[in-house]
């Protein structure tokens, strides 16, 4: 069990993880951001405005849904789904972009930049920018642009500029590199909306705080619905924002928690994104955390069928929770995620995102081996419309 005061230290360290590992040009901006964030959190009008947007724009609270047919089919524990896929823009990412954009406005910055993998954070940032009348540029790897085409179109329609990144493998890591490079040159008037609980302090804390509404709602909902807390929480972990958002309000409860990383084509093939499970401690994108790297400290390419999990790093708080053994980290392969995706479609009429399907696959495995009176709560972090191209290209190959 982790202590109630499990906040990072004044420099953003969760144990040995986190911190601020950035070039000097960005340091003053990050310190300014931290100060502004602390200030804004004390403003009742900010809290009120964000809450109002959550209710009337995002559609919060999102439902907690008991997946009865799926649970009965598996014959074990009851599976509840926290329906973040029903949030406006189709994923949890909007919770965070609204919070950060309000902060940007408070700081007098009218230009937003973001990195995106699956495109959900890019869409959420583009949406928020449109809502607030801000300029928006989204950095996205060319490989992700290819496999998440519908989200690219959505961003363009929303008025954002999508900047293709062709360095490295053209995925999330490279998009984040390029966003950071752009920010170095534009730091005086541009706000960098990071989409995960990664990056230099205060991003990991700030993003978790904007996402913790997921867990707060889910906790209340399950108590109302089932009359008790769940036995197990499950969420997928790329950088880990939806997972931190769900887990955080439960950390002091007697509830088992599992984060699910992407095992890609299988851990033994080396083509995976299981950063905590199979990486080691390093420094990437401004913080210290587990990282996939080779024996010379060079960052390795991750692999996952899901663009949102295809990242060789992970948020520092996850690394910390792993070392404390408060959260277990497991992994699910591409094919297992695809199977889970299809099961949810057939049994519940819900098309989940490939990212969320990793969490679902693990939960389904667990459910089978648990008694019927047990409860598993899964964060269904996003909807799967964006993934249809990928899903059909794989299914047609089978």
């Amino acid at each position: 069990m982790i202590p109630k005061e499990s906040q990072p230290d004044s420099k953003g360290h969760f144990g040995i993880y986190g911190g601020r590992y950035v070039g000097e040009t960005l340091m003053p901006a990050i310190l300014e951001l931290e100060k502004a964030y602390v200030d804004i959190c004390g403003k009742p009008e900010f809290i009120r405005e964000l809450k109002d947007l959550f209710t009337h724009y995002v559609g919060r609270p999102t439902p907690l849904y008991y997946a009865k047919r799926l649970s009965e089919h598996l014959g074990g524990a009851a599976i509840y789904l926290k329906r973040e896929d029903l949030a406006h823009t189709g994923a949890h990412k909007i919770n965070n972009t609204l919070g950060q954009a309000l902060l940007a406005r408070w700081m007098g910055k009218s230009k937003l930049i973001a990195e995106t993998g699956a495109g959900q954070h890019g869409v959420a940032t583009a949406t928020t920018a449109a809502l607030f009348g801000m300029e928006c540029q989204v950095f996205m790897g060319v490989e992700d642009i290819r496999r998440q085409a519908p989200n690219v179109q959505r961003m363009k329609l929303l008025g954002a500029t999508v900047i293709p990144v062709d360095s490295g493998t053209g995925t999330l890591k490279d998009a984040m590199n390029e966003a950071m490079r752009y920010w170095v040159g534009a730091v005086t008037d541009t706000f960098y909306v990071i989409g995960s609980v990664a990056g230099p302090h205060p991003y990991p804390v700030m993003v978790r705080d904007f996402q913790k509404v997921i867990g707060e709602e889910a906790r209340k909902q399950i108590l109302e619905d089932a009359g008790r807390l769940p036995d197990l929480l499950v969420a997928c972990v790329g950088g880990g924002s939806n997972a931190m958002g769900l887990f955080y309000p439960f950390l002091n409860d007697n509830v088992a928690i599992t984060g699910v990383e992407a095992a890609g084509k299988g851990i033994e093939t080396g083509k995976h994104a299981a950063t905590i499970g199979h990486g080691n401690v390093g420094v990437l994108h401004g913080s210290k955390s587990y990282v996939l790297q080779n024996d010379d400290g060079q960052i390795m390419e991750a692999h996952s069928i899901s663009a949102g999990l295809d990242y060789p790093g992970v948020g520092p708080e996850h690394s910390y929770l792993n070392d404390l053994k408060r959260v277990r980290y497991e992994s699910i392969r591409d094919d297992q995620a695809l199977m889970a995706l299809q099961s949810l479609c057939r049994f519940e009429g819900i098309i989940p995102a490939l990212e969320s399907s990793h969490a679902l696959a693990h939960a389904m495995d667990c459910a089978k081996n648990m008694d019927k009176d047990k409860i598993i709560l899964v964060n269904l972090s996003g909807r799967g419309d964006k993934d249809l191209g990928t899903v059909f290209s794989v299914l047609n190959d089978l």
Partner: protein
Amino acid sequence: MNRIDKTFATLKDKGEKALVGFVSAGDPDPEKSLKLISAMCDGGLDILELGIPFSDPTADGPVIQRSSARALKSGTRLSTVLDMSRELRKKTEIPIILFSYYNPIHYYGPEKFCRDAQDAGADGVLVVDLPPEESQELTRFFDKDRFSIIRLVAPTTSEARMQTISDTASGFIYLVSKTGVTGSDGLDTREISSLCGRLKSLTDLPVCIGFGISTAEDVAAIARVADGVVIGSAFERMIENNFDNPELCSILYQKVREYKKATL
């Protein structure tokens, strides 16, 4: 006195400014890279920044990104760069600064790195993404008067931060000429002069200016206000454009001479 302090003292006596050259070690391969760097030293480089290549150089523009990628592709490892430093040290007394992102050093082990770097004849280290707030985990393994920790000051740095940075640095301060990645254009010499003046009023350490300096005219303008001029992308661009040119060594040699003349 260490090699860096000695170099600045000698230059001061002669009324010269330092020409600092950055090269990605191992570009295009370790053997050729060593030859190119030797030619640059012969041309009159005052200080060498030997870049340890990294897969994700987020503070670098496209030219140094490509040079770093070529070095990695040719098999350059952190230990290769230390070997290169050792080789160079056999022939020259030029101060060598290892220029790196933190992850390769973190993986190698900060304590081992500091020991091995000094054994290999290096004189200091500059870690782009290790601000003073985090650098204790590296600096506690060496005596900063013997092995220098070069720190960056940027146009965004406040005066209070400049003071903290100066107080914990050694060797010299690297003043970033503009907000942007390496190799960006749009050098504003007037702006940078006033920034350099402010910084120099806060520290006795020499101040070298880098980022976006590519012509002899730029060098001359910067040399009027700073104690040294750092050139990186311009050298890397020359290397990139002349891979197969048998004259590459002499091209770099000549270019160093031209830049050096502009610092006088």
